[in-house]
């Protein structure tokens, strides 16, 4: 029963993510693109829950869908760009699509070339009794990866100051 549920969930979420990202790339209006990207983010959050990453799913919704997407919407509505936003020559659009397709086929061929990955079963993370995903995550993050964590906070500070300085008038 759980197996069927996982399978149905994967296909529904995966197809939603792929279709929404295709629409995101092909819509002319940037506002529509942003809204389709929102759907992609939610589908990817569902995939994260399937992969035993509940905390990551939560911050995916809060940071990506909540913060980054709102920032994009603000800029789109602030600038109100007139251009349709596609490459002018249709031949170049086809060329870009072909390049992406070739890249995809290369990745898949590489994946299928490694027999281990092809047959690898998803076992999931078995946490010890009484330890939630967030607790296990925090235990690793704030012991083993405390220095990268602090560096990331400095990066965010630099980005914040940089954004203010760059976007300032004059």
């Amino acid at each position, binding site marked *: 029963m759980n*197996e069927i549920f996982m*399978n149905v969930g*994967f296909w529904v979420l*995966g197809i939603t993510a*792929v279709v929404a*990202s295709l629409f*995101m*790339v092909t819509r002319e209006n940037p506002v529509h*693109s942003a809204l389709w*990207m929102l759907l*992609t983010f939610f589908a*990817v959050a569902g*995939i*994260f829950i399937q*992969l*035993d*990453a509940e905390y*990551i799913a939560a911050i995916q919704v809060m940071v*990506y869908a909540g913060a*980054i997407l709102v*920032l*994009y919407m603000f*800029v789109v509505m602030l*600038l109100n*760009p007139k*251009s349709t*936003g596609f*490459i002018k020559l249709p031949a170049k659009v086809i060329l*870009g*699509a072909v*390049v*992406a*397709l070739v*890249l*995809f086929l290369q*990745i898949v061929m590489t*994946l*299928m070339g490694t027999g281990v*990955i092809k*047959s*690898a*079963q*998803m*076992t999931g*993370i078995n946490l010890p009794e009484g330890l939630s995903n967030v607790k*296990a*995550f925090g*235990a*690793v993050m704030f012991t083993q*990866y405390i220095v990268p964590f602090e560096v*990331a906070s400095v*990066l*965010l500070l*630099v*980005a914040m100051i*940089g*954004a*203010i300085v*760059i*976007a300032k008038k004059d």
Partner: protein
Amino acid sequence: MLTLAHYLVLSAIIFSIGVAGVLIRRNLIVMFMSLELMLNAVNINLAAFSSYLQQMTGQIFIVFVMAVAAAEAAVGLALFISLFRNKQTINADEINTMRG
């Protein structure tokens, strides 16, 4: 039966759509959105391997990828605002002042 390959192929599809978006779109904001899409595909990959190898480390790295994505979005969009103020366009084909 779900295998690791299912998740990796899904991630590859989303990554390729992101690459196509960067290549065929000329609106800088939508090109940036495609970039976020590619980072999301990488995140799926990290989560899949984290689950497969039963290691928490993959999920830690997703948080760092998200931090970099947020920083990049903030600085990039500030650049677009500054660019739009000076040139009244955010079409990548029309920004060619430095072309010889």
